[in-house]
């Protein structure tokens, strides 16, 4: 069971770049390994661009043909020149069974602490995470809950995505007409009221809930 953490859009863009040359899984492995080495080297979560790029180069070399290595290296260097978009902090927690909810709540709590988000806002986010993660475990069997925040943590986004059967009576739920055994309409209505912004897309192929919390 792993919690995936990516810091900074540079890591994401490096991932995209690498995926053009190696498989998705290898690209993830390379990026995560490089990130961890860089963090270990610097002793911090946020790492300077040069260090990350250097680690990425050495990590990817193992997976690339000699002829391609130089090409990838220059592509990676080019990323550093791109205008830096606002850095984001992202944590992803895979959800499969109800036992995973504890990890989701713990990760969320840690993230809030790290971002200096406390009190009512933190409680709202924590509760919303528990609700959407529970729905995944209960109805979809497998899914992913991610939290991301901008660098000043003014906006926190929680997404819950799964490839489950979808929510067939979502309109009923919105209207407050659906009452499950728990009496809460799958917690969706509650979560809708908690979040500052709520988006839900559902169908037979899966469901994605996107919640936005704004700190004033």
């Amino acid at each position: 069971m792993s919690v995936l953490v990516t810091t900074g859009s540079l890591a994401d863009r490096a991932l995209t770049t690498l995926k053009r040359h190696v498989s998705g899984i290898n690209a993830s492995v390379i990026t995560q390994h490089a990130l961890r080495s860089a963090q270990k080297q610097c002793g911090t979560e946020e790492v300077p661009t040069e260090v990350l790029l250097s680690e990425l180069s050495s990590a990817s070399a193992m997976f690339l043909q000699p002829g391609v290595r130089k090409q990838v290296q220059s592509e990676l260097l080019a990323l550093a020149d791109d205008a830096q978009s606002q850095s984001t902090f992202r944590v992803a927690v895979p959800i499969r069974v109800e036992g995973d909810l504890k990890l989701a709540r713990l990760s969320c709590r840690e993230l809030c602490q790290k971002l200096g988000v406390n009190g009512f806002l933190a409680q709202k986010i924590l509760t919303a995470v528990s609700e959407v993660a529970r729905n995944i475990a209960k109805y979809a069997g497998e899914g992913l809950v991610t939290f991301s925040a901008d660098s000043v943590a003014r906006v926190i986004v929680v997404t819950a995505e799964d490839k489950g059967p979808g929510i067939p009576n979502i309109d009923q739920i919105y209207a407050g007409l659906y009452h499950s055994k728990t009496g809460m309409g799958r917690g969706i209505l509650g979560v809708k009221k908690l979040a500052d912004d709520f988006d839900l897309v559902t169908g037979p192929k899966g469901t994605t809930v996107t919640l936005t919390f704004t700190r004033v």
Partner: protein
Amino acid sequence: METAPENVTCIRLWDCLLVPLQGDVDDLTAEAALSSVLLRLQQEGCRNVLLDLSGVGTLDSHLCAVLVRLAQSARMMGASTVVSGMRPEIAMTLEAMGVRLRGMNTVATLEEALAELGITRQAETASAEINDDDAFVQRLLA
């Protein structure tokens, strides 16, 4: 990993059953609390269940539903339920979600919960036996 009913703390206080829920209360712990309480009620016939939530991290709609079931089942066994120690953030969140804890009274502190049941600290009376010499002398000189 099953939480056996014995692993949930239930403390007997006269005719009350004190249940202090702690930390991250997962689904198994919630169910264990429910069975634990009902078992103790059956064994000891307590009239009141005091659920203290001051140590609880998150209260989502599912946990609320379990607590409602607990209160309803306890009532069927002749006991009423009082909830105490709910943190303000949790109270605000439940209110925002529109979730109500039906079938139970809610008070701020455990002291209030006990007071409502007529259990308070006994005040020291003048005729109380003084065992401490210093206290005795102080009384004389006061």
